[in-house]
Every structure is written in C-alpha cells, then in structure tokens.
C-alpha cells in the first residue's frame, strides 16, 4: 500500500498504458454523454473531431483508473475534495494508447484529521504519440502509514 509518506514532493511516475476501443467509447457515451460525435463516425464527421472520439469524462475516468491501479501497489486514497483546471487538449480516438504522467507538487499533514495528509498532484494524460490529451490539478487525501501502524 502506498501511503502519504511514500509520496515526496517531486515524485514523478508514468502509469499505463491503457487502450481504449470504439466499443468502450460508445458504451460509455450511451450511458453518460450521448452526443452524436461520441456515438459513431457519422455523427462526428462534420465536427471538430472528424471521427468517433471519446467523451472527455471517459478520458477522465480512464485516467482515474490508471492513477488508482497503475502503480505496483494500491494507493491508500481516502478520496478527494475536487480538481482544478481540467483541460481537454486533444481528442481521444479508438485504438489510442493512454499513459498518465503524475507529479507530486505539494503535500501537508491534515491538522484536523491526523490519520491522513493532503497530496497535490499535477496530472497529464498522454497518447501513444506523447501528445497531452488532458491535464488537471487535484488534491487527494492519503492515509498515513504511521497512523495505520498505530491502529495495529
């Protein structure tokens, strides 16, 4: 388990890859973002996307998957208050292979809840050509190892 103590400021990881299929793009979009350009090539042809492209929220979900499962051990995450400055920079197309570059930019112990600390992350999702498709900044609540040991 990766705890608060294991995430020094400056820690930089490249997680992945995960590949996204046309079927997966359409299934996610049918449920959460059924706009024509996320449902098929025909609905995307005359748009900015040009052909079927993933919902931005699907890209965000795939990024979350890599953040949570892409390390050698699970992250002792206790949730997050939110994120900032999320930018969808390029479309994600079927067959794209996505990587997540995550950097610890700041951290501090919680005064009110000593069992956890706040870790600030800068997150970039990149495709197989190393182009950034999405980026954001977030804060996660991460459990402290010393507290976990206190509990026995």
């Amino acid at each position, binding site marked *: 388990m990766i705890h608060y103590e294991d995430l020094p400021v400056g820690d930089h990881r490249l997680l992945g890859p995960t590949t996204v299929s046309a079927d997966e793009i359409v299934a996610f979009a049918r*449920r*959460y*973002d*059924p*706009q024509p*350009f996320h449902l098929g090539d025909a609905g995307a042809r005359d*748009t*900015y*996307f040009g052909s079927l492209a993933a*919902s*931005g*929220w699907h890209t*965000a*979900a*795939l990024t*979350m*998957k890599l953040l*949570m*499962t892409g390390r050698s051990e699970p992250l002792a*995450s*206790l*949730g*997050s*208050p*939110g*994120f*900032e*400055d*999320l*930018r*969808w920079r390029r479309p994600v197309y079927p067959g794209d292979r996505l990587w997540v570059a995550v950097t610890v930019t700041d951290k501090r112990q919680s005064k009110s809840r000593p069992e956890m600390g706040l870790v600030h992350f800068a997150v970039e999702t990149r495709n197989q050509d190393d182009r950034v498709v999405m980026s*954001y900044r977030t804060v996660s609540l991460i459990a402290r190892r010393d507290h976990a040991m206190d509990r026995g």
Partner: protein
Amino acid sequence: MHYWEDFEIGRVDTFGEYAVTADEIVEFSEAYDPLPFHTDPVAAAQSPYGGLIAPGLLTCAMFMRMLVDHVLLDAASMGSPGVDSVRWLAPVRPGDTLSVRQEVLDARVLRSRPGLGLVKSRFDVRNQIDESVCELISNALFAKRPVQSAS
C-alpha cells in the same frame, strides 16, 4: 435549437432527475475507481463514510448525462475545452436523486473562431434534500445563431 446567443449572462436554469443506485456505483467503480468504499458495501460500512458512496467522477458523469439530455442535445453544442474547477461537497449515496442548477457566468465570442461562442457556467448538482453535492465551473462552446438570409 439553442445557440450561443441564448445563454445570456445571469440566466438560471434547473433540470434533470437522476436516481443513484448501488449497482451503478459498484459497476462504475470496479471499472474506473476501485476503492473499497466505492465497490464493497461491507468495507464501505466500516469506512469513515459509513456506507457506499459514488466516486466523484461518477457524479460528474451523471451530471453530464443530465446536461446532455436537457441542454446539449437541443443546442448547437461544439464540445468543451475544459472545467475550471470541481468541488465534491457531500457524499452521493444509493437512493439519492440528483438534479442540476445552471447559472451562466460569462458568454463571449471567440476571436480565433468567429462562428463560435464560449459559455462559462456554474453548475450545482443537488440531491433530494436540496443539498449541493458537487459544484462545477465549466466552459462549453456553442455555434452562433445562423444569420437569416434575406431571400
């Protein structure tokens, strides 16, 4: 059909009704955010949250579905460059019913793409007791209303 001109600064709209289920929380979480308090009702009961809660991104996805159904499918929507901020303010649990309040904060035409306008909104996702569970400050692009031909 709604165009950029229809999203005037200060406009307030409320829409949507989304019933949150345990099945949907578990299915989404197993695929994208497999923390025990999202995927396992027993572990969740022993967590600080006291029971299963939806991943924040699932709340965003459910918000998006309400936005698409009630606004975007009847609008000249051209996608979104991004979200300025998202705050998850209260847990979302099975049995909750969510809705959305939109307030238009800013609307301007893009210099680089004169046929398009940007709309910045504050969205409050609320539950059945009118508690705000999530606040998003978000941007969306819409086509401008086509100029009517004189002929």
